[in-house]
Every structure is written in structure tokens, then in C-alpha cells.
């Protein structure tokens, strides 16, 4: 049983890391867009590379944010019945959903995502615009990376559910605010 909790904490760490990285990417993106507006309007200077950096950061925000949000139960659910299930009922729904929907979905995105990145790597793809960013494979690699961490958060969903089912813990506790969640 201890191993279950240890494992669960490990999964939580992984998603927390995503949250930190995504938050940092967001702040940088905010400053980046702001800088680009000011540079263009005040100094009449435009850098396509800086403009492209905007959507590179933006991609990191939501692709790394998805596994993070999964851990803190930030993904919207239709609660018409869900709120009425007992914690054990919720746990079964989450195990079922993670196994049937989430993990296979992440696995396929990972599988085809790596092929997608590989193509960009082999061709050494870069931006086609003047002053654009090189190494497109980096930003494309966010896709399979996101899939891996989403799968980890999906496993976390299962370990959480098992804690509820086997150790009798409560979702309210397991899910508290930003913590264990």
C-alpha cells in the first residue's frame, strides 16, 4: 500500500513540474507579446523570430498545462450525475475513463507525434520566413512530450482512485486545492 502512495506522489511531482514550466512559459509569452507591440509601435522594429517565439511559448502553456490541469482536477466535467456518486463511484469512473479514453488517446498521440517530430528533425526544418526561428523539431516535440506527461497524469488518476478504493481516502482530501490533487 505504501508503494501506491509513493507512486502517486511521484506522478504528482511530474505534473507539478509541468505546471511550473507552463506558468513560466506564460509569463514569458505575456512579456514577449508586450515587447513585440512596443517594439513595433515605438521603435518600428519587427522581428519575425520574436513573433514566432510567441506561439512557441503559447504552445508550451497549453500543452504542458494539460497534464498539470489533469492532476488538479481542472478539466471540466459534466456534473449532472458525477456530483451524486460516492467517492468509490467516482473512483471507478476515473479508472474506467483513464484506461479506456485517456491512456490510449495519449499513447496514440505519442506514437504519431514522435513520427511528426522525427520528420522535422530529419529535414532540419526551420521557419520559412525571414528571421524566423530554426529547429522546428523543438516546438513540435512538445506534442509527444505533452502526451507522455498526460499519460503520467492519467496513471496518477488511477493511483488516486486506488487510494480512494483501497485506502479509503476521500477525494476531497486527495484533491485538496493545489496540493495532492
Amino acid at each position, binding site marked *: 500500500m505504501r508503494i501506491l502512495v509513493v507512486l502517486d506522489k511521484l506522478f504528482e511531482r511530474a505534473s507539478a513540474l509541468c505546471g511550473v514550466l507552463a506558468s513560466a512559459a506564460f509569463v514569458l509569452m505575456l512579456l514577449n507579446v508586450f515587447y513585440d507591440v512596443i517594439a513595433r509601435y515605438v521603435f518600428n522594429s*519587427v522581428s519575425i523570430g520574436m513573433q514566432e517565439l510567441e506561439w512557441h511559448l503559447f504552445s508550451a502553456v497549453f500543452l504542458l498545462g494539460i497534464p498539470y490541469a489533469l492532476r488538479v482536477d481542472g478539466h471540466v466535467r459534466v456534473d449532472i450525475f458525477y456530483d451524486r456518486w460516492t467517492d468509490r463511484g467516482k473512483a471507478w469512473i476515473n479508472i474506467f475513463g483513464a484506461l479506456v479514453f485517456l491512456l490510449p488517446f495519449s499513447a496514440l498521440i505519442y506514437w504519431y507525434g514522435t513520427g511528426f517530430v522525427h*520528420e522535422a528533425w530529419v529535414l532540419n*526544418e526551420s521557419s520559412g520566413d525571414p*528571421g524566423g526561428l530554426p529547429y522546428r523539431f523543438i516546438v513540435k516535440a512538445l506534442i509527444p512530450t505533452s502526451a507522455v506527461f498526460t499519460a503520467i497524469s492519467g496513471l496518477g488518476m488511477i493511483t488516486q482512485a486506488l487510494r480512494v478504493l483501497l485506502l479509503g481516502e476521500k477525494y476531497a482530501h486527495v484533491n485538496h486545492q493545489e496540493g495532492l490533487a
Partner: protein
Amino acid sequence: NSGTPGGDTATAAKEAPKAEPAKVYTLKVAETWPANFPIFGDAVNNMAAMAEKMSNGRLKFVIDTSNKHKSPFGVFDMVKSGQYDMGHSASYYWKGKVPNTLYFTTMPFGMIASEQYAWFYYGGGMELMQKVYEPLGLLSFPGGNTGNQMGGWFRKEIKSLDDLQGLKMRIPGFAGEVMSKLGVSVTNIPAGELYTALERGTIDALEWVGPSLDLRMGFHKIAPYYYTGWHEPATELQFLVNKKKWDSLPEDLREILRVAMRTAAYDMYSQSQYESAKNWSTIQVEYPDIKVKTFPKEVLEALYKANQELLEAKAKEDPLAAEILDSQKKFLWKARRWTEISDQAYLNSMPRG
């Protein structure tokens, strides 16, 4: 190989008497354009209809627009990997992936459509194009020409090189590179915000296509100066074909496909000419305030020089690029001398009625 229409009729005739039910080959085609996109989309549909008919139904096509596959600029990858058998797009979109694909659409100060078709089919252009595409497991064929594209819509007149300094313009790709050498601030603006950006002065100018497509964007109402073209004298789209799929087709179907692509491509050039002429005559009547301008000589010469320098740098970097550019340069020189004393002389000498 350029392939001549006609092909090997002998093999086809030999096979015909066998009464087996003909095998049907279905080709999945991804186009860069959205559903119901005029002219560009018509070229694909025409090609498919012709090939189906000519092959008596042995070739079939499933054509997916960007609304279905959602990845207008993923066409290259999707045809390469075999997710689609064919694509309809433009070669210069792949410049970031394979730099040498840049040269098979159109070049600033390059050939006009009649010259470029001559280069593709008779002047060695097709062979060079396959030299770039075949190692990638792809084949590329001319896919329809838009004709000369306009230089773009400007909010203010460009009277000198100074007017270009810090001018904020949306002009993607290689032409943007040339422009930026002259001090233009080349910007990216998503298509959905272009109109607002130009209207409010976030950008000062943009280039789109030409009268056949510009009118529906409404740019003429907010940027009255319409400059004549210099950067895309003969934009040729492309049919991309997955080479494995191509090799798996029987010889006669390959020939049918080749002829259909070639016919559809030239047909799109005719259609573009027709639509642009039609739209331009409407524009002149309905919006007499549009001012058609040509850049001053000083600006054009600077653009020309910047273009030469960039091309020289590219030729130095890569022997294949050097080979392609050399072929284009030599052919252009020859063809232009003829264009000058034929079409150009004719147009210049003809009295305006």
C-alpha cells in the same frame, strides 16, 4: 522526367483485350485550400474528373480540403508519409523544410508564366524539380498558374527608397526576405486579423494574390494604392505525388495522371487570367479610387540588387541550388530576349483602342 502527352499507347492496347475486371486505384488527395476555394480548388477537381474519365473509372480520387484534414501546411508531410497519395499546394511553402523547393513556384524578377512553362517542360525544370523531390520519396508536377501577382496593397504611396524604411508589411517567404533587405519591417499577421490590422494601421501594407482573390478580402477599401508585381511573376502551384504510390500504378494510369495534371495546370492558368481580367474590370468600374502604381525605378533597382545578392548567397551554400539557379538564369536570359521582340514588342507597339 517531363513526359509528353500521348505516352506508351502500345502497352495499353496490348493489355486491353483481357476481359478481367479492371483494378480500380483510389488516390487520396489533400489540398492546401479550404473547401470550395475558387480557381485553386477547381484545378484539383478538373484534374480528378479528367483522369477518372480518361481511365474509364480505373483511377478514382478522394479529395480532402483543409477543412477536413485541418493542416494546410502539413500537405508535404502527409503526402511524404503516405497518409495521402497526392497533394495540391505550392512548392515554396516547403522552403523551411527543404530549402531547394523554393525555386519551383516563382522567383522575384523571374520568368513569366509562358517562359516558366517552357522551362519546366522543355528547359530542364522538371528534371531539376524531381532531383529535389525524388530523394524525399516525392514527385512534384506543375499544378496551375495564377499569372502575375500584384505587389500588394499600400496605405501610402511609395515614392522613394526612404518610404520603405520601417514600413510595416505583411509579405511572407523569400519576397519578404528581399523586402527586409531594403529596410521594410516584415511582419506576421494571422489571416483572420489582416483586415483589421491594415485598416487600423497596425501594418502599412500587405501582399495577397491579385484581383482574382483580393477583391473578396476588401483591402481596396482601406489601402488605396495597388502596386504592380515584381516578386511573383508566375506563381505555379504544385501537384505532389507520393513516389511509392506513383510507382505502384500501372504505366498507362501513370500516363493518364501525368496528362491530367499537365492539362489541369495549364487550364488553371487560363482560368486565372479569365477571373483576374473579369474582376479587374469590375474593380475599375466599382472602385475608381484604387490607384494602380508601379514602384519607382530606384526602388525596383534596389529590390533587384537585393534579390541577386540573396540568390548568390544561396547558390554558394548548396551545389544543387546553384545548379537550379544557373539553369533558371540561363533560360530566362534566352527566353526573355525572345519575349522582348515578340510579346513585349507587340504590346508596346499596339495602338490602344
